[in-house]
């Protein structure tokens, strides 16, 4: 995949933006880019990309996150070094936004810089297994709301069809029709279909542009062996 310098990850609440952001940053790094990952989630109190700070930094990926993330400071705070993504154009940036139109609001102050530089992709992450984007019509409604706040349009769709640890091959295959329909309705190309790495081998020849993802936000209370 050809990367733009600024990669915005937005979409409906709980569509899996954070995990996609972390995995995309890792992939870009593997492909040789200098990458910084920014946690601009002002909605979620738990399960944030800052949770993967160690994993990212181990790979040499910079992390921009509010120093208050994962503390008891219950305020939608922005990272103090967020502007460095635009000051330093030698690095690629992956921006993990919070969910829905509310989460997209965090990008407002950077809109001008993003549009002026005009070297961005705005990824629309969709999980058809989320009840409020269960149909393409519902997903389109959510898209309009987010774009109205962003002040610009999405450029690509990321199919993140999953049921967490329980995702099966059939779940991912079954989502293709939905995503194609969404692509048709919105006029946007599908950048890739994400699947957990355990399913990659079985699905590789069945889905075009398949992107294996590691689940970085797994927690200790999940059953072993999953």
């Amino acid at each position: 995949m050809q990367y733009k310098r600024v990669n915005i990850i937005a979409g409906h609440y709980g569509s899996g933006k954070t995990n996609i952001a972390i995995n995309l940053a890792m992939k870009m790094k593997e492909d040789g880019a200098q990458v910084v990952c920014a946690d601009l989630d002002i909605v979620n109190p738990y399960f944030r990309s800052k949770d993967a700070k160690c994993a990212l930094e181990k790979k040499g990926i910079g992390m921009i996150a509010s120093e208050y993330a994962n503390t008891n400071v219950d305020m939608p705070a922005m990272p103090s070094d967020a502007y460095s993504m635009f000051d330093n154009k030698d690095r690629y940036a992956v921006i993990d936004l919070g969910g829905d139109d509310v989460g997209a609001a965090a990008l407002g102050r950077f809109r001008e810089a993003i549009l002026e530089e005009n070297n961005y992709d705005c990824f629309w992450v969709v999980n058809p297994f989320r009840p409020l984007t269960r149909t393409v019509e519902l997903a389109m409604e959510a898209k309009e709301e987010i774009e109205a706040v962003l002040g610009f349009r999405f450029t690509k769709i990321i199919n993140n069809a999953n049921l967490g640890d329980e995702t099966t091959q059939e779940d991912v295959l079954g989502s293709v029709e939905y995503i194609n329909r969404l692509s048709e309705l919105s006029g946007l190309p599908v950048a890739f279909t994400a699947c957990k790495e355990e399913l990659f081998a079985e699905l590789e020849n069945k889905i075009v542009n398949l992107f294996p993802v590691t689940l970085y936000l797994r927690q200790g209370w999940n059953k072993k062996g999953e």
Partner: protein
Amino acid sequence: MANKVIMKGNEALAEAAILAGCRHYFGYPITPQTEVAAYMAKKMPKIGGTFLQAESEIAAINMVIGVASAGKRVMTSSSSPGISLKSEGISYLAGCDLPALIVNVQRGGPGLGGIQPSQADYFQATRGGGHGDYHLLVFAPSTVQEMVTLTVKGFELADKYRMPSMLLADGTLGQMMEPVVLDIGEVKTYEKPWALTGTELKREHNIVNSLFLQPEELEQVNFARYKMYEEIEATEAMYDTYLMDDADICIVAFGIAARVSKNAIDAARAEGIKVGMIRPITLWPFPKKPLLEAADKVNSFISVELSMGQMIEDIELAIRCKKPVSLCNRVGGMIPTTEDILNSIKKAAKGGNA
């Protein structure tokens, strides 16, 4: 696609409430349960329901009293400090014999505390929380799927017994995402001849009230209510067991603590330690019977809690202090790790206190 969807615990309980026939939600935002209100705000207007963000928790719980009086299924949700504010209204619900569902997605305390998960409102939930002699039906889910089933159960039993129910979750369960099946089958409903629905001059008027002018009368009302509580204690306690058949050590844990405990039990079993678990699903009524029975079989109990040790008192009472009970706990928003619990199990296996 499969009949499953992936949801946050907070969203799942909100959807379950709607499926259970609840069309009235009154609340006030607080982390980590705000998604309940956000979900209701999106959904309720589309299905002819009422979502209202009240000016405070106190206003919200009084709106709940109003709708409950009219005999409709109604709920509110909050997190620990907000539940304290609602406690006066919850006592009034109990005193008026009104059914309603109150959701507490607990966070660390006391005071403003923090926004990370906790189980330190156990006393508040199981002892009533507000003033006077009363109980709530208290349900403790440990998966997102149980957030769904126990929300429905909460509404059903509240109506059946004309008393408030509480879904006692914690921040982790509210925030985590898991696959759920929303096909919940038939929801039980109950006639409410006592409800304030207007007499149309066809019947005597109903009265919903918690004020009694004569102390003798108030005493009788309390006696009658506690007679009903006895029946509930005898019939409605819910629990789950894990590897208890040959267990020498019994872990007692609910909610998120039970999930970590399960991993620790598997790890201990791999090292040859016979340990099992009794997981209370209702915290009131507390599953006293299976615990008392276990007391004759195991050598000791471990209470795993995200509190300074609250449920441990109910365990000691339930087993009549027949066997030692040790505590494995983390507080302030921290969750015990598998290793924390495994260490407690090993200490208990050696006969020491965890």
